[in-house]
């Protein structure tokens, strides 16, 4: 993240940062403390356009999710799980880090998750 400044004393974000609700409140409070006149303007953002995708989604089963932890390529997993490479990529992007984070909170380490752990993380009943 770049914070830019000029010799004339101007300061700017390199690009607009994304913030959580809590961060948004914090930065607004900070700016209001530093500057007298802070006006907030609700803005409609431009969205990134993705190619249209097939939106029929197949539910992920815990045993399929465990497969995502295997050292297999996107294509190999797509074939084994009968899913598109994009669906593997999208789920893999957050599943493993979120599971590890969950395991560390629960057990203090991220070793060998079980199907029950996955169910618990997903909020499913055993």
């Amino acid at each position, binding site marked *: 993240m770049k914070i*830019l400044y000029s010799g004339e004393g101007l300061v700017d974000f390199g*690009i607009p940062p994304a*913030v*959580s609700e809590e*961060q948004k409140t914090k930065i607004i409070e900070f700016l209001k403390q530093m500057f007298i006149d802070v006006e907030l303007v609700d*803005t409609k953002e431009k969205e990134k356009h993705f190619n249209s995708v097939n939106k029929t989604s197949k539910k992920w089963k815990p045993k399929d999710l465990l497969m995502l932890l295997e050292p297999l390529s996107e294509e190999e997993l797509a074939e084994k799980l009968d899913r598109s490479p994009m669906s593997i990529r999208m*789920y893999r992007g*957050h599943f493993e*880090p979120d599971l590890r984070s969950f395991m560390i909170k629960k057990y203090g380490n*991220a070793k060998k998750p079980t199907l029950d752990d996955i169910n618990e993380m997903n909020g499913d009943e055993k």
Partner: protein
Amino acid sequence: MKVFIGDNTHIDFKEPILMTLEQREKFVYFLKNEMFEQSIIFVEKTSDFRKERLGDKFFSEEWSPEEYILLTNLNKSTYDVAQSMGRTWLSINMKRGNEIYSFKLKLKSKNLDYDDFDNLSKDKKLEIIKEWMAEKGISEKTRTIMEEIKKQNNWQHNIKEMKDALGIVYQKLTPKPEEQNFKKAVRELKKTNEYKEFIKANYDY
């Protein structure tokens, strides 16, 4: 001053803000200590601020090696990483989805797993990340040249017209890079959205 509050989690200033040195230092300290991960914030001097503001276009920025350290810390949830980097949950998810397998292979080639990696020093992590990034296509040397070119005013124009100013960057670089790296940097810059949008706005009639 006007602050744009986006409907998809981003914020922006309507225009660059005039700050005293003390205010700027406070602002940077606040961002580093109260908002985002310190290591990913870089303060740079410029004479050329962006014209487009939140709502004008979709913004994207290249991922720095320091961001890759956070991105590849698989012990951190996607939400936590997004928050510490000032990027959206979706962008972290997509990037991780694209990179996790490749990163796993890189660690495997070094006989490491995530826990080993997590326990390494920041310098060692950066070393592995930079090695990995270079292997993925763009070398550190090429990235440095890209950054040098982007420091020029109107760099897109210089690239498009192959202006003399572009050659000045090449001459200034020490140690002088091979011409191939320089050409690769120019090719990579031509792929960026910033360049494409500049060409669209100024040359596509």
